[in-house]
């Protein structure tokens, strides 16, 4: 090997090594910055969620009980599309439905409270729950029943469900959770909140 060839290879190797070093440093700092940004966003969202929870807790007994390991949301649900974008703080969850799983989670915006079931998530504003006493939602999956669920304030202990055939079911609120299932879509939810009586007319569901 001539001196020129040897120097050429040394030059190439040195350039490659320098590049590799710069790449490593740059990627490491890029990852660091990205992770730092994400951690900052998460920390801000967590603080907001804690504040939102504190705002609603005086009206909702289930939120006044401290979070424990029994309240943990299933890992599969946390990573599912319902929660994976961090819309709600799973670390502050309260499990309120046991036979049929359901949780309350404060929203990461600090203004809403989410009701989570294995196939649905609804996040009304805290103010709705405070003012009206209940924020009902209706959800259904391809092979399950139609489920009416919602977070109720301590002021609402019983709710009326107007069923598909027009009959009325009186449903108790347990752990501040309204939870009612039916094969057919009910017509309406009625309750009396701190600001008076309410009726939420439900949309019909094709095929149910």
């Amino acid at each position, binding site marked *: 090997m001539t001196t020129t060839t040897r120097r050429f290879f040394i030059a190439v190797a040195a350039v490659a090594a*320098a590049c590799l070093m*710069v790449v490593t440093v740059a990627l490491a700092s890029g990852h660091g910055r990205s992770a730092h940004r994400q951690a900052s966003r998460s920390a801000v969202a967590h603080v907001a969620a804690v504040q939102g929870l504190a705002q609603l807790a005086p009206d909702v007994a289930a939120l006044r009980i401290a979070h424990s390991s029994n309240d943990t949301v299933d890992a599969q649900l946390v*990573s599912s599309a319902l929660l*994976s974008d961090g819309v709600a703080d799973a670390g502050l969850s309260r499990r309120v439905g046991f036979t049929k799983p359901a949780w309350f989670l404060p929203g990461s915006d600090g203004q809403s409270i989410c009701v989570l079931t294995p196939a649905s998530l609804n996040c009304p*504003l805290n103010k709705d729950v405070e003012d009206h006493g209940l924020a009902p*939602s209706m*959800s259904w999956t391809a092979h399950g029943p139609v489920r009416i669920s919602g977070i109720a304030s301590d002021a609402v202990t019983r709710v009326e469900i107007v069923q598909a055939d027009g009959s009325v079911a009186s449903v108790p609120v347990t752990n501040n959770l309204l939870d009612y299932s039916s094969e057919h879509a009910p017509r309406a939810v009625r309750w009396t909140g701190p600001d008076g009586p309410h009726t939420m007319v439900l949309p019909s*569901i094709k095929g149910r």
Partner: protein
Amino acid sequence: MASSRMAGSRLSLAAIWRLIACAALLCALGLTIAPGHAAARTPCQGNTCLPEAGSNYTFEAVWNCGQIHSEVHCYYKETTSLGSATTHTWGFGSASYSGEGTDRVTIEAGTPEFTYFGGTGTNLMRACYWETCHDQEEIFLHEVVWNEGFHTISGHGEA
């Protein structure tokens, strides 16, 4: 031999160090810019915010139909006409209202004859086809606003 000696003198040690310095500088420049582009990318677009495990989703879309009146359906992709709507293997859908106050929204997925999954509630409603939120079959997806007045509701689906 003469040309080899000439080349050797052209590629002196000083030249090699200059070459290394320039290459390192170029690499550093390129990689300083690259993370900036990555950071500027809008979150939750494409596959970046799909569920991490078990969903089998390969497609994600976000849409709205501008301001729509109560009970108007806004189908993927951005049409209020079922005839112009596009089906997909939706396994997850979301309807959200981010304006002032509260609004009732609905997300529904199905065919013209049957609604497979959906939900209706205040401000943000998300629902899945399966209780596992896994991927499934070919259906339409649309969101609806229920309050009087005109409102913009964001639809979000994964398939």
